[in-house]
């Protein structure tokens, strides 16, 4: 590769980085705005705030004080109707046996149904709860799937909307964003160079 090619690539990656920082900055401004309006406030929800499907009460003799439920099939759902601007949701549950997939589906304004495409997969927190990074979505409803097996006894300890999230974590791209940040600048550089070659000149 010539130096010019290297310079072109560096330029494209620098532009992508700048664009990324811009997006992150815009997200931070948006978060501050919605927090100010109250739509982005931190909020704690109890089991009574959800409509439950394929979930029933469960009595655990070893923990009579706790709130327990058990899923009755492989698609248990906790549906919350409400509007919020969300960065991070924490589902505070503990499975008594492995539950496999823990997922959050969200509806955007105007949508009536949850979509398979609008899903966030859980990451386990150090406390053993499940965290979902929505990264600034203005939602009109949430569906939390606490497991995907059925017959899983689960201790429910609450749901926290807009749980605390260190600001610097916004800078870390998701997997898909990281792939785009690696691939797109390369593609743009290749396209620019290709066009230049067609025109018979070096960029």
């Amino acid at each position, binding site marked *: 590769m010539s130096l010019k090619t290297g310079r072109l690539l560096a330029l494209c990656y620098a532009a992508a980085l700048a664009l990324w920082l811009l997006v992150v900055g815009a997200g931070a401004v948006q978060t501050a705005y919605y927090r100010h309006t109250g739509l982005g406030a931190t909020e704690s929800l109890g089991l009574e705030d959800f409509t439950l499907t394929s979930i029933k009460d469960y009595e655990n003799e070893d923990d009579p004080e706790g709130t327990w439920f058990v899923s009755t099939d492989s698609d248990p759902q906790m549906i919350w109707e409400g509007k919020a601007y969300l960065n991070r949701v924490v589902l505070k549950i503990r499975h008594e046996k492995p539950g496999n997939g823990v997922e959050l589906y969200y509806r955007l304004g105007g949508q009536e149904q949850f979509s*398979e495409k609008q899903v966030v*997969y*859980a990451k386990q927190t150090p406390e053993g709860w499940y965290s979902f990074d929505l990264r600034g979505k203005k939602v009109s409803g949430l569906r939390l799937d606490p497991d995907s097996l059925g017959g899983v006894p689960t201790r429910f300890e609450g749901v926290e909307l807009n749980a605390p999230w260190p600001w610097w974590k916004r800078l870390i791209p*998701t997997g898909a964003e990281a*792939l785009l940040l690696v691939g797109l600048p390369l593609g743009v550089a*290749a*396209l620019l160079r*290709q066009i230049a*070659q067609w025109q018979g000149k070096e960029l």
Partner: protein
Amino acid sequence: MNWGDGLLALLGICAFSLLWARKWELNAALLPLPVLGASVVWLWLFGMADQLALGGWLWFAGAAAALCLLLVGGHKGQSLPARLKAGGLDALHRAAVPGFVFFVGAALFFWILFALTQPMFIRWDEFTFWGTACKMTKEANQLHAVAPGNLSARAYLPGMMLVSYLFQFLGVGFAEWKTLAAYDILAAAVFAAFAAQEKKRWPFAVLTLAGAVLLPYLFTPAGDETVSTIHLTAMGDLSLGLVFGGVLCLYFRLPRSPKNLTLVGLSLLLLTLIKDMGMAYALIAAALIALDILIYPRLCLPSLGRAAAAGIGLGVPVAAAYLGWSRYVLAAADIEKNVVGNSEKSYGYGYMFTDGLKQFLGRGSEENAEKFNTVLGLMKNALVHTPLSLAGSALAVLAALAAVLGLCLVMAPAGQRRRPALFGLAGLGAFGAFVLFHLLLYVYSFSDREALILKDYERYIGTYLMGWMMASLGLLGLLAPEGRWPRLGQGAGILCSGAMALVFCLKGVPSAGFWNYPHENYAVRQEVAYRASLVNPELDWDDEVLLISQGDDATRWYYYSYELNAQLAHGFGGFGYAEEDDWAWETTFMTLVSPYQDEYNKEFYAYQSEYQYTAECSRDDLVAFLRDTGYGYILLDQSDKYVYYEFGPLFTEKVPIDRADAAYLYKVVDDGVEMRFEPVGEVRYVS
């Protein structure tokens, strides 16, 4: 060396590739695929001689020697530092081509990503064959056909297991993520062959490669996989399709010479060894290559001889490899491979083809006639209506292929226009034969239930079409820029790539993939692995262990079969095992349910009505079953009230009444009068 083993294997592959590129004056991007092919054949031959580990050590010794030879360049009269500098610079110069840079970059990316994220096997077939066989090969340093482990499909071909073995040969123990990364490195080698362009054409290589790497996603029906396992599976189908396309791209890109055809031949052997269908793919590829040699540069008598020689030279080793493996598994594992069928019926290949041909003429056997006609109708319908890609059905893909090859025909240099035309027609003929072969497999090999749903139709047919599409794009990328309108030709290649990216963005972006796979999906796997690790020290491969895991849907049974260092015993289905009028049959997994039909028991054990794969089993039934089979151990993974009350008296210590924190191992002790289950090892249930 817990993660460095694969990097050393990668270094070895690079060294072999660059050295070969220097010796034969080739683009280095063309070499990783044949080098991997040669490596698999090498390990396979040593494996069949039961010297797999020796083959591995010799491979790495060869790689070290290749690296030294690569780095020592210049002339004999020069000092060593000068020669090292010359050799290093030459290697760097050869490596700095787009395809090879992509290969190394993608290989490092997958290796590092998976070392950090530690993906696991999760698909069903990974536990019935693909993953289990990789684990057995690594742990026993033997081919899976003869290695100890819970594997029934021992006759399946070993190519992918050897790719996995190579990349973790120097490491301690078996790691699933290394297998997954190794398969992705093989995919990267295929893409490197696709993008084997000169350095100055890197923009075109990058832009066309963008479309090629999306191909596996494009051949996923829309909405089928919101969590994609592409590049995250040990199953061989993706590799089969990619290597099929890659071998043809390799052939198109290589300068035409008998010497270079050996590189194609080595890659074809890898294709053959991936899975049973690999031989069909390899023979189709050999035929397509022979036809291309026949017509290009011109159709004449000498070219007929060259084409015949190439066809035979490529096809005979393919057939020999397949038949060699068949003979090996017959001799080493006493398995007759050349039969098709299921648990109900089995046939020889000869009968399948002759009776199948007769069925077309309406003169086949009566017992298969109805099934044949039904499946024929289903296949015709599926080709038009069943989506197997984001573009739609096989018919839609054929239209897309016609568009790509049509573009290629228009843009190709005048003397080469017949190449895409013949490639399209011959590929279509081969596709027809391929579909007919699958029709016969559905009729003669699959059970009625599987045949009537055309089980895995999308996977089988889509794989071929994906490889064919990749080869067609490769041909377009080769010929179009050399034609009368080079810029337009390049534009056509880029346009195809752009169209594929657009379709992917609009219809096919999965919500999760190898870049963000949800690890919560591994929760059951991880728990079974942990439980098995606690009892494995007490077990040996001679031991037969009956798993009791109440309420399981067989998932945990297969996970245990993968994790336990013992034979996981089969259970039974039906009822009345200990009685004369029993109705029982052998199964893999079973859940024990109450046979008692009185009101009290029916109500007390009502929850058992939700269980799957049940065996009505009283205490006497279990004792009789264990006496008949002679199983030595019971592993109690998940208890329930029925186990507690009905079988509790057989255990010498109290058993849990529900789920517990571990799986408990018991030895079956029987004096012929009384049977007892005694706890084994450190892990004991404490109530």
